[in-house]
């Protein structure tokens, strides 16, 4: 059993190393003027100073956060509402919900934004508003992850029995679902939410297709810098990465706090 544990630890460490190498290389590259041999030369923070003093960069980061958070909140609420109906009242409808939540798999990546773009560019306001299109498309993109997260967790905690118990104690179905079951599954759903956040935060294709130059997110900023300077590009990548890390840390923190309160 002990050797088993050791090999498990080793496997994890090897995968971690593999996943971190490109990141670490990017970090080092952003900190040195020249790297053409084993060791990089001439340490500098110039690339970071340039980015931090660039207002355009900060505005684009703000846009990215806004455009990630809004669709995630809306999508989670919408799916919870739909699951309230199918889980408690109409279990036979769940398969249709599931189909609707599986379709985004079939149109992910470049396909959905192209379909949306082809359809909505020629329709009247407000449907051709780029931000509106972007938020709605993001909601569809993260739908499978949010749905699956919520569904798995509902089954995982045995929500049916909890609702029955709550009803026996006099709670309404609505109360039982949203005040008893939902707070209990949100911990598990946070994983889906974080996955969604990662997807939208790292998105280039959807924003590039739907908004083009009209809505410069951090990824679009990055793509612009890429054509100019390698070192600065690496610095932007690292900064964006740290921001994502901060968001994840916040999510974990909120999650833990809720757990303590409960």
């Amino acid at each position: 059993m002990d050797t088993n544990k050791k090999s498990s630890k080793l496997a994890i460490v090897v995968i971690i190393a593999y996943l971190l190498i490109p990141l670490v290389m990017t970090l080092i590259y952003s900190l040195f003027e020249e790297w053409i041999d084993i060791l990089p030369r001439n340490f500098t923070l110039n690339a970071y100073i340039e980015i931090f003093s660039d207002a355009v960069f900060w505005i684009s980061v703000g846009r990215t956060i806004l455009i990630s958070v809004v669709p995630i909140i809306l999508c989670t609420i919408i799916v919870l509402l739909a699951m309230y109906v199918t889980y408690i009242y109409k279990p036979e409808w769940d398969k249709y919900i599931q189909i609707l939540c599986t379709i985004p798999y079939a149109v992910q990546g470049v396909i959905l934004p192209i379909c949306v773009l082809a359809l909505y560019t020629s329709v009247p306001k407000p449907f051709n508003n780029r931000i509106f299109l972007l938020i709605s498309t993001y909601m569809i993109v993260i739908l499978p992850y949010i749905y699956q997260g919520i569904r798995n967790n509902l089954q995982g905690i045995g929500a049916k029995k909890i609702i029955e118990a709550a009803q026996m104690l006099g709670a309404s179905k609505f109360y039982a679902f949203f005040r008893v079951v939902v707070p209990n599954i949100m911990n598990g759903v946070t994983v889906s939410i974080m996955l969604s956040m990662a997807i939208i935060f790292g998105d280039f294709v959807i924003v590039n297709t739907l908004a083009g130059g009209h809505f410069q997110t951090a990824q679009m900023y990055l793509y612009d810098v890429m054509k100019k300077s390698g070192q600065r590009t690496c610095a932007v990548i690292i900064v964006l990465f740290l921001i994502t890390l901060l968001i994840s840390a916040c999510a974990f923190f909120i999650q833990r706090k809720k757990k303590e309160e409960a």
Partner: protein
Amino acid sequence: MNNKKTYLFALIPFLVLCILFELIPIIYTSVRSFVPEGKDIGFTFENYINIFSKTLYQKAIVNSLLISILSSIIGLIVAFIGAKAVHESKGKLNNIFMSILNMVSNFSGVPLAFAYIIMFGNVGVMTMIGSNYGIEFLANFPLYSVWGLLLIYVYFQIPLSTLLLIPAFDAIRKEWKESNALLGGTNFTFWTKIGIPILMPSILSTFSVLFANALAAYASAYALLMNNVSLLPIRLSEQFVGDLVQRPEFGSAIAVVLIVFMIIAIMIQNKLTVKKGI
């Protein structure tokens, strides 16, 4: 009776979203793929015939399928090892691993492609080290090719697949392992006879997620090779956006071909999962 049905209102936002931004765009694209190029109305199979008869697009199909299947399989193998390790060792390292997986799942698309460019690109660090010390493999690393892309695709498949597989391992109970040991089974027989069969639905559904993820991936390929690589998503996008003459009807047909490939993957997975359920 009417009063009791009020709960149905809760379904409306979901339906509106799905109809407006999922169903109608897909139906519109599908219908348009049968319209002759440059016309508003009509019916033709010409767009589809063009995709499957022109070498340029045939190559895109082959490359896309190859890179998607290979990267999914490799990603899944690594994910299985990783998720199994998490399942078997509880503790701090697991938390670190989970955090890193969440972290690097954001590391895809343009940033990832650029990280590989600085490592293995024309003037990349590894490439320079390779040529300085006569390591042929590094000096001539084929990053700007389908194989280079495969390397990048495998990287972004690993965090996603591991994050999807880890929860599945919760289904494996300690008691089963003990029963297996009591009946004389080894660790190997446990996984081949009990563990993997139980996890199979999760493994297959993860595969389908990975396959679709790779098949429609665009940003990494675009950042690395612009439009100079024959992949379906690149060919699709260039019909609608960019410098080339826009061909929305032909592009719609490419979109439909891509969708069909992904539906096949999802259907195969569903079928296998159902069989396992019986």
